[in-house]
């Protein structure tokens, strides 16, 4: 064995560039795979942290709705009903604005003494709050402090519910409170403002601590439903909306399908890595075939030669893995910074490095294994080359099944079909490329005879070389796989981006006023700055155990042109987007039953909407469900800030707030946006890896053919002609690779689109952009 390792050492010393390139390739593969794994870890971490920030330890929330008779709730009343089996914290939405600058900040009023029963806060810096200063103390977010150029201990005056009040900053938090509030004040201090004008408030004194949302932390496990039932049975809470926190996170984040996207990303990065590493190693091994054959002819056993192959690639992995690890850390930090995580602090899981190291080792061993098999048994080599003859029909069959079978089965079939497509491209491209160049060669030869060969044949020799030189066919294979992976990811990410942007511009209004009343509407309609006011109901329902978002609108103009809608539903009509139809196997005329709240309603599917907005549209009035949100559309050219302030002034005492319509959906797609941002970051990383891999491959393959080019020179071909010949070889390889990958990408994307329908997603085939 010593002799064999000496041979390996000398081989590497003789041609060090090739091993260096392979080590670099393995390192970069590890960086890409680690990045994909870390995206999943970061996003899951962000989701968990977000839940803690937005809901604390709350198990469920209680909030007002349009049918609620009273406009506020009391946390101590709730605790009384629950017989102290739960801790209850009440929040009161409190927009404040700076009169002089006309800017609005979104705040919340809480009971400072109680809030930490459910929520935990981390402050960058803070001052002590005493009982005498509690009502003049404000806790602010870092964004707020920077925006208004304020620091710890500074005072500021704002208009609160129509009254001017001065606060002193006693603490600065890194992130907004409960995920969305810029400042937090004590509710008693706010209510004292109203006391002067309200008999009710003044009579109740400091015990008047109203809330519009309650956060309930059940102290004993397993009693959440009992607590909800107990509150619902009380007259003060029976007309309120209850929401289990776990359900909110599931609907908002749609964690399951999003995690699937991460696995798809990891799988694609693996495919890319396998292709790049394999193709680089192919060239190195190809050169050694003669040497290895000589060893065997001199008596070396196959097992010794196999061990040498594994040892060589193992050595490259041992050097490449630490380099990959070292590069992964800054790259992962960059992802963390660029993607925009708000709550999660990047902690690098050793697990991600272990997994990516293991995966790159598997890729390396697999690569060596394939060459060992190909060298050992010529018959199997033939089979290997012809593998595409089996995988191609299998792929076509699974492709047809994926697009025709019921939606629930499609994702698994999609995965199998994508793998078969990958194997078909990998094993078939060299053969097809060779065949096509043979045809071109025959045509050129005939033309040469006809024309008495007066043309310099640099293109002709390029065709001949491509036909025969396996490393060139190998380069074409690599390029095809790279382009298919890149096109697929680009289309998927772009598609998701377009969908989310469509959501953001879906509502045809500037602001939404949730939990609004008729009185709100009257006040807003009187404003000159408001052109249109629409009423909507946004709710959620369950259809066959699937949670769906539901929307009812008073006027079709409430929605923009991105929605495929020409009228509002009448009666029990239901307008369903295609993605939900796929998942639920619905067609026009079907009767469906949807659970909304405690009741079940019968609907008739009347329209299949082609837009990608995953919300069903129905007519709430038909079922006696009242609209709960107003949409206010400002007049043309009005400044948004001005409109916002006018609306706030109008609804000051309505115990509600206003939300920018674009931001209304932002919260629903926080996690989705993170995935898309990650996708936009990982994509250039993959492209860079692919480009480096391709360049490496070309460099190695041309270095390996130096002797051949010298022979051309010796035969009288000028260097210029040799260069031109090489150019044509690369052009042929690139053109064929591009054409084939475009065709294959179409299949891959169609497969992915159909596969994702299992989760209720449809991809926009934004292929042109890709």
């Amino acid at each position: 064995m010593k002799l064999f390792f000496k041979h390996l050492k000398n081989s590497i010393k003789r041609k060090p560039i090739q091993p260096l390139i392979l080590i670099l390739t393995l390192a970069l593969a590890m960086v890409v795979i680690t990045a994909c794994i870390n995206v999943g870890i970061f996003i899951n971490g962000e989701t968990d942290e977000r839940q803690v920030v937005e809901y604390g330890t709350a198990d469920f929330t209680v909030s007002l709705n349009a049918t609620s008779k009273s406009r506020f709730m009391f946390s101590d009343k709730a605790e009384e009903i629950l017989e102290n089996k739960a801790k209850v914290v009440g929040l009161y939405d409190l927009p404040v604005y700076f009169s002089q600058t006309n800017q609005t900040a979104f705040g919340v009023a809480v009971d400072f003494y109680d809030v930490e029963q459910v929520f935990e806060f981390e402050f960058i810096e803070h001052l002590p709050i005493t009982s005498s200063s509690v009502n003049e103390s404000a806790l602010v977010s870092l964004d707020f402090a920077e925006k208004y150029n304020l620091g710890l201990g500074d005072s500021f005056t704002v208009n609160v519910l129509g009254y001017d009040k001065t606060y002193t900053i006693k603490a600065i938090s890194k992130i907004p409170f409960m995920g969305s509030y810029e400042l937090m004040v004590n509710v008693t201090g706010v209510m004292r403002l109203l006391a002067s004008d309200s008999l009710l408030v003044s009579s109740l004194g400091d015990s008047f601590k109203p809330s519009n949302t309650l956060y309930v932390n059940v102290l004993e496990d397993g009693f959440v439903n009992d607590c909800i039932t107990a509150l619902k049975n009380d007259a003060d809470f029976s007309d309120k909306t209850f929401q289990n926190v776990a359900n909110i996170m599931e609907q908002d984040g749609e964690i399951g399908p999003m995690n699937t996207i991460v696995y798809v990303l990891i799988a694609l990065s693996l495919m890319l890595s396998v292709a790049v590493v394999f193709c680089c190693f192919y060239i190195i091994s190809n050169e050694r075939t003669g040497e290895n054959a000589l060893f065997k002819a001199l008596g070396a056993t196959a097992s010794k030669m196999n061990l040498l192959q594994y040892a060589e690639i193992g050595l490259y992995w041992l050097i490449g893995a630490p380099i990959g690890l070292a590069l992964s850390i800054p790259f992962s930090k960059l992802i963390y910074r660029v993607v925009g995580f708000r709550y999660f602090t990047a902690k690098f899981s050793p697990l991600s490095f272990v997994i990516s190291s293991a995966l790159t080792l598997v890729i390396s061993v697999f690569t060596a294994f394939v060459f060992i098999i190909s060298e050992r048994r010529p018959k199997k080599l033939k089979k290997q080359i012809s593998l595409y003859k089996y995988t191609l029909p299998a792929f076509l069959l699974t492709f047809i099944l994926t697009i025709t079978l019921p939606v629930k089965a499609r994702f698994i079939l999609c995965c199998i079909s994508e793998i078969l497509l990958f194997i078909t491209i990998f094993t078939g491209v060299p053969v097809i490329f060779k065949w096509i160049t043979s045809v071109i060669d025959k045509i050129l030869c005939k033309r040469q005879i006809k024309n008495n060969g007066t043309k310099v044949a640099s293109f002709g020799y390029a065709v001949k070389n491509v036909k025969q030189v396996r490393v060139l066919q190998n380069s074409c294979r690599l390029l095809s796989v790279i382009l298919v992976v890149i096109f697929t990811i680009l289309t998927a990410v772009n598609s998701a981006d377009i969908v989310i942007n469509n959501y953001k511009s879906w509502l045809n209004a500037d602001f939404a006023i949730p939990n609004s009343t008729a009185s709100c509407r009257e006040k807003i309609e009187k404003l000159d700055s408001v052109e249109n006011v629409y009423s909507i109901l946004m709710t959620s329902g369950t259809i066959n155990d699937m949670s769906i978002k539901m929307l009812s609108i008073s006027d079709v103009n409430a929605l923009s042109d991105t929605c495929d809608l020409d009228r509002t539903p009448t009666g029990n009509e239901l307008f369903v987007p295609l993605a939900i139809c796929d998942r639920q196997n619905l067609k026009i005329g079907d009767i469906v039953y949807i659970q909304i709240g405690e009741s079940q309603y019968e609907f008739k599917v009347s329209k299949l909407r082609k837009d990608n907005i995953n919300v069903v549209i129905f007519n709430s009035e038909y079922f006696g469900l009242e609209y709960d949100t107003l949409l206010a559309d400002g007049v043309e050219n009005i400044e948004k800030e001005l409109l916002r302030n006018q609306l706030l002034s109008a609804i000051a005492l309505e115990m509600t707030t206003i939300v920018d319509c674009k931001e209304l959906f932002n919260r629903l797609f926080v996690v989705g946006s993170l995935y898309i941002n990650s996708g936009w970051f990982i994509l250039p990383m993959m492209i860079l890896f692919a480009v480096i891999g391709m360049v490496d491959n070309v460099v190695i393959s041309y270095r390996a053919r130096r002797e051949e080019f010298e022979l051309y020179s010796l035969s009288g071909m000028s260097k210029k002609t040799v260069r031109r010949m090489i150019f044509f070889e690369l052009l042929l390889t690139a053109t064929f690779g591009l054409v084939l990958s475009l065709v294959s990408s179409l299949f891959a994307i169609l497969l992915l689109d159909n596969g994702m329908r299992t989760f209720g997603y449809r991809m926009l085939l934004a292929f042109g952009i890709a």
Partner: protein
Amino acid sequence: MIQIQNVTKSYNGEKVLKGIDLTFSDKEFVSIMGASGSGKSTLLSIIGGFLRPDDGNVLWEGQNPFDFTDDALAGKRRSYMGFVFQSFKLISTLTAKDNIMLPVTLSKKINNETLEYFDFLTTELEIKPFLNKYPGQLSGGQCQRVAIARALCYKPSVVILDEPTGALDSVMEVKVMELLKRVNKEQKTTIIQVTHSEKVSCYGDRIIRLKDGLIVK
């Protein structure tokens, strides 16, 4: 005419050629002989312009090939000089026919005359049946004959051959040497060959013997 003036060459400090002076006239058929390690192949490589001597000059028709530009040298290689290497040096990705026609194609000289000559050479060298095969599919003798055909196909002024009959049987050896003799006579091609065989060397007009890097007088 080819002139070698006081050429020396060393490898790793060891002198292989020690001041060689030679002149090859037009239409001459010269055989270079010597024991293994005497410097024959080195001398041939220097004459062919593949190896630069440490000292001395090589002149092709009065011009030093090492002073040519790349393009000019390439041009000379496909018109003035043909070379048959000891290890054949066929391009593995081209068929036998493509290998033979390569210099002619590069010179844009494919015409009826060259095609006829190609036909003649391949018949004489008995390589017609496997013109469409690749070097990897040919035997050593077949490769050698293809290499000879490649060197002769474009009717160069000088043909240099390194052990041209090393892989051939005695019958084919005679055929090849007869062909070279004929080319030398009819086309007035200068032929310089390195050989171990006394029999083959006798086909030449002159025999040069090398020993320890020097010409034996």
